[in-house]
């Protein structure tokens, strides 16, 4: 078991290094750079000589390998450099932007899971075929609603018309309700779809009639027997959905004017703010790797069959 864990962590680090290196190469390959974008901006009105001097000061034209080695060494020490556009250290930007995104993503994922489970159970328990069909088509609707439109509609209705929550200067709860709802809808859709399909499939397995014959209630069967078996593929997809969360966060953060990694990335991309992008890529990769590691390690806890097999190899 411990060797398995060490191996997986080693793999994770390798993935991180690869993500760093690839993103470094790709970012360097882009035409132009942050210094050019920042200082060629006519707001500055700098002359060619002045721009050349600034470029020299930032060592932007030194060799690729030198830059790579410098950046890598700095990253290892936790120094992400300065944001060319914002004029602050990247670590300060991360410190202000990471926690709100984690909060938004965490709550959004939680809300999405609750919503997905609710839909799945509702569709299983639905008494009429037409109602079941209706509920089962909800995920398709959810996934086709553009996040951008949904966010603006929620704001227009709940904030500007009904004046229930304030978007500007919100309190701690006001600031999360609508964004979390916006984020939860598209994430809940694939979760609910997979859950519904799994539940339907597992309900045809022989152990279900056996449980029913032993006198278990429908809810009991669903909760204790079917759901436990249906959850594994959902867990797998959950790791993948994290990417969706980040993408959704870009739109949600922009519309609601929240600070977060999504908005930071969007700004960094349009300004080719390489140090910010590099840090965001590495942090996203770290998050992906951690979540997938956690999912892998959680399988045996949820499914005894996997536990014995792992136990045998460890």
């Amino acid at each position, binding site marked *: 078991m411990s060797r398995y864990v060490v191996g997986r962590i080693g793999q994770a680090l390798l993935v991180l290094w690869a993500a760093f290196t690839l993103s470094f190469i790709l970012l360097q390959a*882009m035409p132009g750079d942050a210094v050019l974008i920042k200082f060629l901006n006519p707001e500055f009105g700098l002359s060619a000589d002045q721009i050349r001097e600034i470029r020299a000061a930032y060592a932007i034209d030194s060799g690729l390998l030198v830059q790579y080695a410098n950046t890598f060494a700095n990253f290892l020490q936790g120094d992400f450099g*300065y944001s060319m556009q914002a004029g602050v250290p990247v670590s300060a930007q991360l410190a202000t932007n990471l926690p709100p995104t984690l909060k938004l993503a965490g709550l959004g994922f939680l809300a999405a899971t609750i919503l997905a489970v609710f839909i799945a159970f509702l569709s299983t328990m639905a008494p009429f075929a037409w109602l079941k069909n209706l509920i089962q088509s909800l995920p398709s609707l959810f996934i086709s609603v553009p996040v951008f439109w949904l966010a603006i509609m929620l704001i227009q209705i709940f904030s500007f018309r009904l004046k229930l929550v304030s978007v500007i200067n919100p309190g701690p709860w006001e600031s999360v309700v609508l964004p979390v709802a916006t984020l939860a809808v598209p994430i809940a859709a694939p979760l609910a779809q997979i859950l519904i399909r799994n539940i339907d499939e597992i309900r045809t397995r022989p152990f279900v009639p056996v449980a029913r014959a032993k006198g278990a209630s429908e809810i009991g069967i669903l909760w204790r027997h079917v759901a436990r078996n249906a959850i594994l593929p959902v867990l797998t997809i959950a790791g993948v959905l994290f990417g969706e969360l980040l993408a959704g966060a870009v739109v949600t953060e922009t519309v609601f*004017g929240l600070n977060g990694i999504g908005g930071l990335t969007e700004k960094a991309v349009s300004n080719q703010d390489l140090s910010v992008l590099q840090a965001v890529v590495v942090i996203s990769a770290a998050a992906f790797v951690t979540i997938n590691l956690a999912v892998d390690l959680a399988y045996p806890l949820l499914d005894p069959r996997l536990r014995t097999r792992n136990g045998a190899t460890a």
Partner: protein
Amino acid sequence: MTPYRKILALSLGLLAATALPALTRAADAPVKGGTLVYLEQQAHTNLYSPAGGFYPNGGILNQITDKLTYQNPKTLEIEPWLAESWQINENATEYTFKLRSGITFSDGTPVDAAVIAKNFDTYGLGDKALKKPISEVVNNYERSEVIDPLTVKFYFKKPSPGFLQGTSVIGSGIVSLSTLALPFEQLGDATKIIGSGPFVVAAETIGKTLDLKVREDYKWGPAKLEHQGRAYLDEIKYIVTGEDSVRIGALLAGQADFIRQIQAYDEGQVEAQSFTIYAPGTRGMNNSIAFRPDNPLLADVKVRKALSLAVNRDEIISTIFSKNYPKATSVLASTAIGYVPQTDKLEFDLEKAEALLDEAGFKAGSDGIREKDGQKLVLTAYASLPQPQSQAVLQLIAQQWSKIGVKFNVLAGDAGSKVVDELDPLKTPIAVAMVGRADPDVVKSLYYPTLRNQLLQQGGTSDKVKTFSDAKLNAILDEIASQPDREKRLKAVADAQAYVLDQAYAVPIFEEPQAFAGAPYVKGIAFEAVGRPSFYSTWLDK
């Protein structure tokens, strides 16, 4: 009277007419206190004063820093502020400023001749060790001299008649020695910017919110302003809200008091609810498209003239904009210093345009696009993100040009390749141009090869320019920036306007305003000469 003031006067008049009977106290007695919630479209970037041209930066720096002089936004005259008086020698190479006494920065240190000298040494010469660039508004700077604690003198290598106005702009905001000692890359943190202005940065969440608090002991506002002493507001809360509909909705729903950037198509719903639109002009070079004659397609003045004749300004303004966007009548705004109308050079005449293209040898090909020696008349430009509706304007021009057999490709302004491509006249034969500054130097800024170089002459940042250079134009531009005699200088400004349009180097389209909207109870909003808000005299009538 500029249009925005007309609107302002009208709406204030209406307000007064409806509100007066109900009010018993004096109608215009400002009330102290309260917080102004200000919604910005974009987060501020680096707050090095010379970077104050960027509107989100200027909107903050204008509240927290003072300037040596004050440019009256109505008369454009230069009036005292931190400097009580000044002397300029005959050929504008020596400027002596006498400072007002008793001024302090918000950290308690005094504003004296030494710190003013250090400010302009930085803006005029840059600071290589701290990576700070030279300011656009300080030309030919040589050195400073502290004569006594309240007298400072500046020397210039060549006549620099624009310097006095240069001391009044946001880009010359005075900051403390501690701020000057910081390297460039740390100036994005607003809490580190120590000025002597009427407001002080109290707290900031970078990229999201910024809180300003009033300075109780402030008593050195521009001497000729009616309002003296501390600002009326207690606090200003800047909140970055990028989404247009959210900013406007929040304003109308009472969640915000004042917002920046409102598109022409949204003006109606704001005014319908008796909120106020403020659209101060930017008094510089108009929003225009500039041609790059280095590109062989545009080397012939006849082709450039034809393209200019085929642009229908009236259609652009009536389709995309509103009354707050006046039609351009020169490359300079009609409210700018030295403006001379050039309407005879800015006609719309499709027949003449086609005749000129025929003359230049561009004949319609099988696909309707004109060509000469196998070269099709296909042009390209990137939209400009800071300019209002830039993409829509260019697309409409593309439609208009298609009528004379010219194909015009419009590329998105957020493309990663934009910055590099815009240096290459073959890739971008056309560029969107605009600069705001209430001094004739602005003409030089836009076209001079070592400055913004909009026409892409040789000698600028670009190494892609093969031959194009216009010595005559550059001589006029040099004259504008270094002629100490006011009359001769204005003559050069007039010459530049006529010459640029005679050569059809640019097609001015409209006078670009900065559009803001405010709640009816927000009073005393003022704008500096180039349209950045000043909240010093703002108060809330609620």
